């Protein structure tokens, strides 16, 4: 037998701040060990433009905030064995979800930014841009999620633990290991 097949890992970033991706990078030198076991097949950290077929694990950061987020997430679900909801925005909607409490939420955030707080060509952008959803919502309201990893962001240690367990074919035991915020 040749070398053991590397696990195909993807990461995706929906409506969020990228703090979860930064926490992923905060694994520091452990990334080098990780690189021996995984093949990164799709991520903002690399140049693949199309979400590939047949991915083993995908970490998804951010809430579902616009139509493209929803499309990408469904696409990810259809092509991924284990989908991890990474961080508070993905798990609860969190910060992007703060707009949900506003009356006419999308209209009011757009008006403030693009009509009121500008002095030149006030208008709401809409040309060739994904439409914002009325509410920014967590992943599991759109697709089935296999693991939930709260935290804003989840710590690098926690991300490393989860990946180590999944790569070893075990189910991570999240009890007492994470908290919101």
């Amino acid at each position, binding site marked *: 037998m040749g070398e053991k097949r590397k696990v195909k890992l993807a990461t995706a970033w929906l*409506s969020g701040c990228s703090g979860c991706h930064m*926490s992923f990078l905060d694994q520091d030198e452990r990334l080098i060990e990780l690189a021996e076991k995984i093949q990164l097949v799709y991520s*903002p950290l690399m140049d693949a433009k199309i979400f590939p077929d047949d991915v083993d694990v995908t970490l998804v950061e951010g809430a579902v905030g616009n139509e493209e*987020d929803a499309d*990408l997430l469904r696409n990810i679900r259809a092509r991924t064995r284990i989908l991890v909801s990474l961080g508070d925005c993905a798990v609860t909607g969190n910060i992007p979800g703060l*707009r949900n409490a506003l009356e006419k939420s999308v209209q009011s*955030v757009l008006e403030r930014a693009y009509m009121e707080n*500008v002095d*030149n060509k006030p208008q709401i952008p809409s040309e060739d841009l994904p439409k914002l959803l009325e509410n920014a919502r967590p992943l599991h309201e759109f697709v089935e999620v296999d693991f939930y990893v709260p935290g*804003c962001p989840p710590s690098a240690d926690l991300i490393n633990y989860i990946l180590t367990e999944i790569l070893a074919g075990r189910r991570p035991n999240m009890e007492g290991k994470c908290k919101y915020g």
Partner: protein
Amino acid sequence: MVRSPRPSEHEITIAPVTRIEGHAKVTIRLDREGSVKDARFQVIDFRGFEKFCEGRPFYEMPSITSRICGICPVSHLLASVKACDDILAVTIPQTAVLLRRLMHMGQIIQSHALSFFYLSSPDILLGMDAEPAKRNIFYMMEKYPQIARDGIKLRKFGQEIIESLSGRRIHSSEWVVPGGVSSPLKREKAEAIQRDLPEALRIVSETLSNFKERLEILDEEIESFGNFPTYYLGMVTQNGEIEHYDGPLRIVDPNGSVVEDNIDPKDYAKYIGEAVEPWTYMKVPYLKLVGYPDGIYRVGPLPRLNVSSRCGTPLADAELKEYRKFGRNGIVQSTFMYHYARLIEILFCIEKVDEILKDPATHSDHVQAKASANRMEGIGVAEAPRGTLIHHYRISREGLITWANLIIATEHNNLAYNKAIAQVAKKYIRRGRLDEGLLNRIEAVIRALDPCLSCATHEVGRMPLQVKLVDDEGHILDQISR
């Protein structure tokens, strides 16, 4: 309705743009002859912080707005607490100023290391035409293990400074508070940072000398990557040295003459206007003294070096002298040189870390001034890794936010993005012919400016490359995909 299509324009879309910090796509329009007509840098997400913060207590703002960005959360924390300090109307203790500065040095080091090593080094070391599958940090670990390891260590050094002060690396809002910071720096943490300094210094010095050696073979990129005159904006000290935490703003013109100096950051709105274009969620700031859309200016590491008289630390000043040879009148204008400027800033920040740690005032226990709201409005400005960052709040008598305006570093550069992309496209697209190297060059010029689109959207991977054939009323007549 039947129309007779007249193929008059080609449109090329690159989506998503990758190895950048956020969500964007690029559309290039070609004329009938296949020459580039214009380029659009489209930011495709938006979150709405300026509105949904309303009604929150002002002292929650640092915690909420640091979530604008996980890459430069400290810069947001600082701009935000400075706006809150302004609302409190207090002078914060000198120790708190030093500790906030120290944290910000950690922020700039880690963010610049991310940009240079994790996102751009494959372009610089493997070349713009390298195989797409190899252009990432994981391949760098195989091919250039020492460089990849150095990049990881340097970013870690910055993150550990932040963690030493606040107990966490990302979103440290329990530590940075209005009026100061919540706890002093522990002696053993200071010693640990001090111990790691020589290694950080070694890494940046070696990286700088390797980068300088490569400049000769990168001359095509230097020549064509967003190489054009613009205005430049940045913060300086009272002595005109480079500054990231607090000081007046300076604007220099494309020839290097100072046109506005000693600008109180609280007067930002006198100088900077904001416009909107229908095809992007990123607003388009411009200089009011020139008007829209000609008031194009740049912010960030290269502009900071352009507006400063000197760095103010010995090693960085020696590098600055060499760097300025690449410009005229002290102004370096090629966007590619942002990479060089970023490395000089890392060096500067490392020297500053040492300086701050050696200052006895850093080690006092007096770190917070306590007060409640004394003003109804506050403005906080800091230099984030990517450039000038402005937070502006108004509150009610109860201390609740009634209005907020944010201008983010990446937004200031919006006009420059479009111009830089068009310049690269014009050089490399001939008669509508596309190749992989061209696409990567367009993305690489974006990477050089290091957009932080989490920030710009205060608010990735979508479509494959598409070439669209569009008639003059915008109807798609034909399209192909990679």
